[in-house]
């Protein structure tokens, strides 16, 4: 059995995590039954899906830690630590097979598994963490005293900028900056001549980057093996299960509009004012006003419209009608039409792009001249109030929404907006602009049905 670590510990720390946290370096040569194959995978998938939901609702790290702990305990934990470990490893490798097959799936699986690893790592005690770091063969230099002396002022300065007080006892790791991209991106570490100086409390980021990189490579390899031989060899046994498992969760991605009929251009103004979420209303409005949008704005709105059911020919007509007023029809055809067709998967490598989810939109950063991103995040209070006013929101609802915004619960603010403008409650909470649209249409459709005279 090639499990990386098999320490026996009484994992009674109540955190719900297994005493050992495997790194999934190589597939185990375990024997297990076909029923376990499916069941274990589904249980793990529940955990991953819960993580996905938690992240898209913008839960803070402490909340995520609790979530992971509970989910793990509920779905994966067994009284016997060895059995938990076995299930952990088997389920991971089964899901690798399931999610290695498409790029979007690989990306999702990689993100969720890394998140799962991150929070489980955080829940481990210091000794266990150190042990894992050694396993990952981190030949990282602990910062020596001499070098520490030369840069300690900067280390303190960096620590203070993230509200952390370091003291002479704090251990620092000196690593190439490439290994801690998240810390560099958020300016949470001091860097000098290409090295980042990572304090002990930030080491999670480092470990996760390595974990992620290893799993990413493994997924690519698994994909090749699957296509080359396994898929064929296993077509009567495992392959059908793998297919079925691939369809289980993931949540609708709205790339192929199903229930709502295709929308036509003549309806679009009406639909924009009744059923578009604020981010798309804003982009739509600016497009009408300026007859132009910058690239990210075109992507965000364009893919949304695709998800809403706007056909390619109509999309081209729509964008041409607007852009030609600013840049002329000829320039539109030359410079912009290509990328619209690209979005619909008709050019280049023919990927059918999926409309952006709230999480993606919230995380984007608009700059000068941009109108994309999440208005609840980026608009000033004054502008946001004005925009919501135009939607017909006022009074008490407005205050509730602004309160959510101040606390950075952007999706909840959007949900409240939906409730205020439709006069109904939205149980599920908004995490995708197309979901907002679909829910809105559902509401109006049922309202219309009710007002029809019965036979």
């Amino acid at each position, binding site marked *: 059995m090639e499990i990386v670590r098999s320490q026996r510990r009484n994992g009674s720390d109540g955190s719900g995590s297994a005493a050992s946290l495997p790194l999934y370096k190589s597939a185990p040569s375990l024997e297990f039954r076909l029923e376990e194959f499916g069941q274990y995978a589904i249980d793990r998938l529940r955990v991953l899906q819960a993580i996905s939901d938690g992240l898209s609702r913008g839960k803070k790290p402490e909340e995520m830690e609790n979530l992971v702990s509970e989910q793990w305990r509920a779905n994966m934990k067994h009284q016997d630590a060895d059995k938990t470990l076995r299930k952990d490893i088997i389920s991971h490798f089964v899901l690798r097979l399931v999610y290695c097959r498409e790029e979007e799936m690989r990306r999702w699986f990689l993100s969720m598994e890394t998140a799962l690893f991150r929070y489980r790592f955080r829940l481990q005690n210091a000794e266990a963490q150190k042990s894992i770091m050694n396993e990952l063969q981190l030949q990282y230099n602990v910062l020596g005293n001499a070098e520490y002396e030369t840069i300690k002022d900067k280390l303190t300065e960096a620590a203070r900028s993230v509200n952390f007080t370091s003291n002479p006892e704090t251990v620092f790791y000196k690593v190439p900056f490439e290994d801690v991209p*998240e810390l560099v991106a958020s300016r949470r570490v001091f860097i000098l001549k290409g090295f980042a100086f990572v304090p002990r409390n930030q080491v999670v980021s480092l470990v996760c980057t390595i974990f992620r990189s290893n799993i990413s490579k493994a997924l690519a390899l698994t994909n090749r093996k699957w296509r080359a031989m396994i898929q064929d060899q296993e077509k009567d046994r495992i392959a059908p299960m793998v297919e079925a498992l691939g369809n289980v969760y993931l949540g609708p991605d709205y790339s192929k509009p199903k229930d709502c009929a295709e929308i036509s251009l003549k309806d679009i103004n009406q639909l924009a004012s009744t059923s578009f979420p604020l981010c798309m209303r804003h982009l739509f409005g600016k497009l009408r006003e300026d007859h132009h949008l910058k690239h990210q704005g075109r992507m965000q709105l364009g893919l949304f419209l695709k998800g809403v059911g706007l056909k390619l020919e109509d999309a081209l007509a729509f964008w041409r009608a607007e852009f030609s007023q600013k840049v002329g029809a000829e320039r539109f055809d030359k410079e912009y039409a290509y990328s619209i067709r690209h979005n619909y998967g008709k050019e280049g490598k023919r990927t059918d792009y999926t409309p952006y989810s709230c999480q993606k939109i919230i995380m984007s950063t608009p*700059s000068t001249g941009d109108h*994309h991103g999440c208005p609840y995040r980026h608009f000033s209070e004054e502008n946001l109030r004005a925009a919501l006013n135009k939607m017909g929101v006022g009074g008490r609802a407005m205050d509730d929404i602004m309160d959510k915004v101040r606390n950075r619960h952007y999706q909840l603010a959007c949900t409240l907006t939906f409730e205020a403008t439709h006069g109904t409650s939205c149980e599920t909470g908004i995490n995708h602009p197309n979901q907002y649209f679909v829910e809105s249409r559902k509401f109006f459709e049922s309202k219309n049905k009710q007002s029809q005279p019965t036979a």
Partner: protein
Amino acid sequence: MTKEKEEHREDPMQIDSNRVPTGSLLTDYLRIYYGKFFPYTDMFKWLAYGNDGKHPGCDSSYFGRREFSFTIKSDRDEIYLRFQSFFNASEMETSIKAKCPTKIDIGAVYTVDPAKRHAYAQSGFNPIERELVFDIDISDYDDVRYCCSGADTCLNCWPLMTIAIKVIDTALREDFGFSHILWVYSGRRGVHCWVCDSRARRLSKEQRSAIADYFHVYKGGENSLKKVTFSGPLHPFLARAYTDVLKNEFEKWVSTQKLFEHEERFHKILQLIPDESVVSELAEKWQGNSVRWEHLKHMLQSGSKKTQGLRRCIEEIVFSYTYPRLDIQVTKGMNHLLKAPFCVHPGTGRICIPIDPKKCEEFDPTSVPTVAQLIEELNANASIGADNYVEKTSLAASVHLFRTCFLEPLIKTCKDELENAYNTKIQQTKDSLNW
């Protein structure tokens, strides 16, 4: 030919002169430019990164796997040709001279020759190396400059670009440890930066993203009021940028842009202060008073107001106005195509020449040589029978700068790296043969 050129000679003091060559005149000029001026050998040496020699460690396919793209203007149309590639300098020269592109872009180095990409499965054609690049446009600062807007620039607002070069160049060298950095004037309203260390060329998309975000301080689109927010003490990088560059540059900016003399201009600054009482107190006292900036600083620094968000207000104001505004997407992508140095900008006729970051304060965009000017000089030299006439034109200084400050140190490093990599490989082979 001479007479036409007399008529179209550019007045070097004006950037947006309507004497810029267009249409067939531009094509004629480009033909001469590509015939006599464009530095093919230097560009090849740069992009080959040492793989152009006879050393057994050289990869002779390397240069040929680089993507170039050409923009070619004909009478009515503009054609864009991607995935151009060349085996060596000579092929590149022939192709450029034949096609006479109005713009040449440089893309990434791929796994295989871009011209042969269709022969490989989708997964076989990927970018594997690409310089770390930055693109800064002065039109992104339109909300804080009052002398120009859009594509225009003058000596009053160009300092914003100088600031950007200083802040970013220092960080790239000091913080990230890069040393082979090329800054290029983009020909009209901005600058490009090419970081060419091998470590930089091998960065993944995620790592480029991280670096872009490290520099991303000015955030928020058209509808947010406050684009810079500091919640606590500044990270060492920001503190250094502020102390060494931004603080003093802002003082100069206050005066050249007369920020506190016009109500709508200082009103914008007041909007960045998150305390109504401070704002109204200042607005009252400022009726007809011109030491406003000193007054503002004093009030915010005195600490008498304890409102949250005031502690870093001065820095926030300074950063909002002067901190570099990058086009983040350019830096994040691995296959984003960026204009090549030494191109002619079709809108201004100016050559995209390198800028020495150590002397960036001396750079004057209004006196950058234009293609018309160069051709004029060429003719003048020829008529007096001078030899090596290209080297006696205004472009010579730029080519010299490119070579001495950038190319030569880079090639030396590349050759060393190739040598070391090769020796290591040989040693490993030897080792594996030992019992």
